[in-house]
């Protein structure tokens, strides 16, 4: 395989910028694609070349394979990096790239096929002896059959979309009476989100931890793991905070889970970066959940504790190079990532697109901000609300928590609402600082995380400051209003004059 000289990044936002940064460091030219809503986006400004691929909705732009490939041809790109989401786990796109003679930076289509459909992935894992959450491996012929199965394994159960991911089509069912309505809802959600209404059933584990293992494989048959990430801080099955090492993993359990993750990747002929997700129960039994056949949002925490650039590795593996390591490095220190979303936790996490009037990002030691926005940028209404990922490193977990909180205190974004305070509340909560938080943590502490952390001294300072602000503003306005009509304004009413001078 030849050296890659030019990469088209088939994505937007922070991940497109992040991939391009590594490309620049490696001396590789970059090509952006953008929708009509993204002309002013940061990834367009960062790239060497940029091509318009369609209207704002992603199914008419970022998801249209022919447009992306056409842009790659026009630019003369020899490889495509898909980022995460969009076309990153689409096997037919991988085949289309191969056909067009363009290197897809990711696993082969066959590995995606083997892991993409969740029930098939479970069957494949059972075959090679990887433990899976007890549940169904075949689609059900009818809702009666599904209900009977749920009764057999016992409530509570989880309904999950076979084509799924990202929490869509997922339902927890606690009682037999609720089964039919949840089953219908899950099927309809799955159909809308993935174009496939197949839903399977898993035993619901009590207080599970979501722990995932980063794996990496080269084209020469070498597969290693790069330790784990703890991702149990989730809201609506979406990750909000991630950290590594997991506070609940012993070195023995890490080694065991890593070994199983490597086995899972090898079983499907994996190449490149991937993640094997597990649920860990209260007895520290672990079960395969699914494999993500792409780079993940939370990859920076792994980069912090391993000292590796995972995007650089993806590119080198795609060029045919061998992995520079033969076994997992021992984790060095502790890293935490928080996802900054344009949303208002105080108003039921309502999305908050709009113009960013001011943005001041934290600085200081061992801190990284992977952002897709800048001051004056308008966050469009069409895409995911994640605008930035803040991550920190420190020698210990306790120090990393304090550093992340300090960084959040420095983070100022105006014009839109972001979840900065909510993230701070998570990092301050005793259940988080104690380290044994399960996937029920955020929903369980919902109320506490939303507001009871208010400091009365700061509220008073804010109240008095707001009065000074209003007073200074009113004084300034009064001064700017002329006492007598200025030249050329004779005959204009006082009201119009006031309007002209800004009230």
């Amino acid at each position, binding site marked *: 395989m030849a050296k890659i000289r030019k990469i088209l990044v088939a994505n937007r936002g922070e991940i497109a910028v992040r991939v391009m940064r590594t490309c620049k460091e490696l001396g590789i030219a970059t090509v952006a694609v953008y929708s009509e809503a993204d002309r002013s986006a940061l990834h367009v400004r960062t790239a060497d070349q940029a091509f318009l691929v369609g209207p704002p909705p992603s199914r008419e732009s970022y998801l249209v394979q022919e447009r992306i490939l056409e842009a790659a041809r026009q630019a003369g790109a020899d490889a495509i990096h898909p980022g995460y989401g969009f076309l990153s786990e689409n096997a037919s796109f991988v085949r289309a790239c191969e056909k067009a003679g363009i290197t897809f930076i990711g696993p082969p289509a066959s590995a995606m096929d083997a892991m993409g459909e969740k029930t098939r992935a479970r069957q494949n894992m059972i075959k090679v002896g990887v433990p899976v959450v007890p549940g169904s491996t075949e689609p059900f012929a009818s809702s009666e059959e599904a209900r009977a199965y749920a009764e057999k394994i016992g409530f509570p159960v989880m309904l999950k979309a076979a084509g799924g991911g990202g929490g869509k089509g997922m339902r927890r069912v606690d009682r037999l009476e609720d089964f039919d309505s949840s089953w219908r809802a899950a099927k309809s959600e799955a159909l809308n989100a993935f174009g496939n209404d197949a839903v399977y059933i898993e035993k619901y584990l009590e207080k599970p931890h979501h722990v995932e293992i980063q794996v990496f494989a080269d084209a020469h048959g070498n597969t290693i793991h790069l330790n784990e990430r703890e991702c149990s801080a989730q809201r609506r099955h979406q990750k909000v905070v991630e950290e590594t090492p997991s506070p609940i993993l012993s070195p023995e359990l890490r080694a065991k889970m890593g070994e199983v993750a490597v086995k899972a990747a090898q079983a499907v002929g994996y190449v490149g970066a991937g993640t094997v997700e597990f649920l860990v129960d209260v007895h520290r039994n672990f079960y395969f959940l699914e494999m993500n056949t792409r780079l993940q949002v939370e990859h920076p925490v792994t980069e912090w504790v391993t000292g590796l650039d995972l995007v650089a590795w993806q590119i080198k593996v795609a060029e045919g190079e061998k992995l520079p390591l033969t076994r997992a490095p021992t984790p060095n220190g502790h890293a935490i990532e928080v996802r900054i979303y344009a949303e208002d936790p105080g*108003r039921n996490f309502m999305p908050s*697109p709009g113009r960013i009037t001011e943005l001041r990002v934290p600085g200081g030691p061992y801190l990284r901000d992977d952002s897709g926005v800048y001051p004056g940028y308008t966050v469009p209404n069409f895409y995911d609300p994640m605008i930035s990922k803040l991550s920190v490193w420190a020698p210990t977990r306790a120090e990393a928590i304090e550093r992340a909180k300090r960084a959040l*205190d420095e983070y100022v974004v105006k014009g839109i609402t972001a979840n900065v305070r909510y993230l701070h509340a998570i990092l301050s909560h005793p259940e988080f600082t104690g380290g044994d938080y399960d996937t029920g943590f955020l929903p369980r502490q919902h109320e506490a995380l939303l507001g009871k952390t208010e400091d009365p001294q700061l509220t008073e300072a804010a109240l*008095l*400051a707001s*009065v*000074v602000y209003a007073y200074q503003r009113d004084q300034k306005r009064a001064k700017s209003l002329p006492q007598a009509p200025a030249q050329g304004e004779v005959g204009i009413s006082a009201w119009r004059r006031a309007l002209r001078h800004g009230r």
Partner: protein
Amino acid sequence: MRYFAKLHGQKEAVPVDIEPAGDHRYKLTHAGKTVVVDALALEGGALSLLMDGHSYNVEFDEAGDEVRVLVRGQWSRIDVADERRLRLRQGTAGFSVEGKQLIAAPMPGKVVKVLVKLGDEVKEGQGLVVVEAMKMENELKSPKAGKVVELPAREGTAVEINARLVVVE
């Protein structure tokens, strides 16, 4: 000069008296006590506030009638008005949930569902319209019990921020 400041979610506005005391210093009287603060205005709508020897960096973000105020990582939403403005606003939204209430689009998006009809009696907290933005659906609820007297919201239409959707009286 007297101002009234109301914290978001609280019913009562508190009076605060302010007097300039030279060189970006102000005498503030509130809840029976008086403090002199040093409030240096900075670019981009920020204040460096020194109060009782404490230093606060304060950021402001105007959002309609309210000002969002950031102090040491904590955002507060505060509605501030002087006496004249308070009189002008009586009977309209802002300091109370009496009278006509306009429910406007909190963000740009698309109206995916209208849950009420013109003339419907609604309860406080009842869902009125559903607006979709950034791939998420958000139900907007009535701030008071009353009757739907205006309903400009149309299913399937795109709306800008602050677009009029429903008026409840």
